[in-house]
């Protein structure tokens, strides 16, 4: 739209006024904040990050010793915790959500109604309530002495979930990085194949990926020498000996977030499958293709186009909801910044860190999902 004389003048006047108003408000806020901070004796700046922390952190993937390491390292621990919880929740809720979403469309009335009830019950109750509910439930479980035995070596008690350990933390890091490398390699190969540079055929399929994703990490751990004989927990006296623990906090957080997110993903998946024209399924059936193959080769590829944009919103939601960890006492990034602020009084810096970290994570997820979306989108001219 082109401005004519009077409109241009009024538009410029509006802009000047706005800039003055917002600038003035910003200046006032900054000035009073600085004054308040000075009054409280808090120095501004990020130099406090190199101060030594005395608070212990319960769950951490890297070594953290209170009284030796700095706030910067504590923040890194928090970031890794946020990322690992979000990753686990995203994978678990996508699997559960897809199964439930597809089951809701099943011709079996009992199955579809049950899944519908699950979705309605889960998504109409606040996620924070669900988190504290699961946390409370785990704390109310019997003590290790009379723990539930889920399977050989897997115990559930009020101390969390005890499971047989295959390796130490280094092994976990090796496994995760192997899988990450594998995903990047597959994505890269798929890109090359799309451009027609290479022809990999059957090597580039989901079964091949899953096989590799299971065997490569095991091989990597084995060759790095971190593989131990399974350390099966046994009950000795009042507590377990051996094995590894999923703490009550982490269990409640992953269970609660996964269940909550799965209900929303189920709805997204259902909408995606419903959105595929019925003629596609009928045509596949007329060709004599079985229901499972129809789903995998005809329905899902087309449903993905509808599913991916809302799904990326849901994944962003998982990252943001992981900050609710603070309610069950799991030390994620938000919880650590929270206690850092109450220790040092550096509220402005702490909030800046939170905003920057979450904006970066959100941006990364949406870039990745946009790329996925381009891969499955219809090629139109």
């Amino acid at each position, binding site marked *: 739209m082109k401005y004519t004389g009077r409109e241009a003048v009024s538009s410029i006047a*509006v802009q000047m006024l706005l800039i003055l108003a917002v600038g003035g408000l910003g200046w006032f806020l900054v000035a009073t904040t600085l004054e308040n901070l000075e009054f409280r004796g808090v120095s501004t700046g990020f130099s406090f990050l190199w101060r030594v922390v005395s608070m212990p952190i319960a769950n951490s993937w890297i070594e953290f010793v209170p009284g030796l390491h700095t706030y910067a390292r504590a923040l890194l621990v928090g970031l890794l915790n946020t990322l690992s919880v979000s990753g686990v929740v995203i994978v678990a809720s996508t699997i559960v959500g897809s199964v439930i979403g597809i089951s809701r469309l099943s011709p079996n009335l*009992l199955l579809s109604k049950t899944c519908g009830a699950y979705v*309605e019950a889960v998504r109409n*109750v606040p996620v924070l*309530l669900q988190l504290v509910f699961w946390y409370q439930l785990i*704390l109310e479980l019997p003590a290790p002495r009379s723990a539930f035995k889920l399977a050989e070596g897997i115990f559930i008690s009020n101390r969390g979930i005890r499971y047989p350990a295959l390796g130490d933390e280094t092994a976990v890091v090796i496994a995760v990085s192997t899988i990450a490398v594998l995903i990047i390699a597959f994505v890269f190969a798929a890109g090359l194949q799309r451009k027609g540079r290479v022809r990999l055929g059957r090597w580039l399929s989901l079964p091949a990926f899953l096989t590799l994703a299971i065997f490569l990490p095991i091989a990597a751990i084995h060759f790095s020498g971190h593989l131990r004989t399974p350390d099966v927990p046994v009950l000795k006296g009042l507590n377990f000996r051996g094995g590894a623990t999923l703490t009550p906090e982490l269990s409640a957080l992953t269970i609660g977030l996964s269940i909550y997110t799965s209900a929303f993903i189920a709805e997204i998946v259902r909408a995606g499958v419903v959105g595929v024209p019925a003629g596609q399924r009928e045509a596949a059936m007329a060709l004599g293709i079985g229901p499972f193959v129809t789903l995998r080769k005809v329905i899902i590829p087309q449903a993905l186009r509808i599913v991916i944009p809302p799904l990326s919103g849901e994944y962003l939601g998982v990252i943001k909801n992981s*900050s609710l960890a603070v309610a069950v006492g799991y030390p994620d990034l938000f919880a650590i910044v929270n206690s850092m602020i109450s220790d040092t009084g550096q509220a*402005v810096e702490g909030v800046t860190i939170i905003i920057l970290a*979450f904006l970066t994570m*959100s941006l990364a997820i949406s870039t990745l999902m946009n790329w996925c979306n381009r891969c499955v989108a219809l090629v139109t001219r």
Partner: protein
Amino acid sequence: MITIVMILLLGKLAWWFLDWAVFRAVWSVPSTPSPDTQACRTADAGACWALIREKYRFILFGLYPHPEQWRAALSVLIFLSLYPLSADRRLWGWKLVILWVAGLAAVFVLMYGGVMGLAYVPEDQWGGLPVTLMLATFGIALALPLAVVVALGRSSNNPTVRTMCVIYVELIRGIPLISVLFMASVMFPLFLPDGMNFSKLLRAQLGIVLFTGAYLSETIRGGLQAVPAGQSEAAHALGLGYWKTMYFVVMPQALTLVLPAIVSLCIGLFKSTSLVMIIGIFDLLNAGKRAIAEPAWQGFGAEAYFFVGAIYFAFCFSMARFGAGLEKRLRRDR
């Protein structure tokens, strides 16, 4: 085959649940002089519903003074009667606005007191369901005008206005609600000169409004984009200015288009008001959590959360039903 497995599985679950919630439940315990929860702690005791019986007033109304709790209950009733009235299409318009203003004024008089012979109750004694309903209601009522302005700003030609709106919306949508609430509770006092301050509840409310406004404005912007350009061009051709075009022609169509989406945002808002628990405000969820903090009742968390969850479910489920009905009717109208 699936049917048989499902029947077995559901039957077992239902039996286990009924056994816990009904057959082995403890409905009441001797409560004088202090609650004696021994009956709930025996090995074969199921759900301890006596907790709800004992504590339901605390969960619903928090620390509100006991003899005055009828006022909090009446406020909840006012809210509960205003919601279905707002869902009635025949009342949409000025009538509804007047109704809401009168209703909310009554709620404030009831909750604060201090006039007409009612005892004064300060804000920090409010709690439970009235606080949750207030946070949600004012959240949506104040976020809506803000969102309309921001949505218009984001689709305007004016580059400064557009940039400011984009920064606001994307910044808020990138961070979790609890960090906004945290800013409202910890940072906000730093922003203001000495002696000037708001109560914590008001600050949390402000945070919720700013947060909801950003999401709502994106929904409304979607509606604005869906209104055909011919509509505003025709209005221009008739000689209507920008504001009149928006008010009489474009906005009514845009808002109608996204009404179902707004309802689902309301559901999300209602649920996320529970996050104020983290900054220590006594809403419904926090009251439920505090109810089981007493030594006598420790270990019966599931029952309290069940009760609170059922209340949230009732509200959200009826909103969802209303939204689905609305969607169906809008599709038929078009």
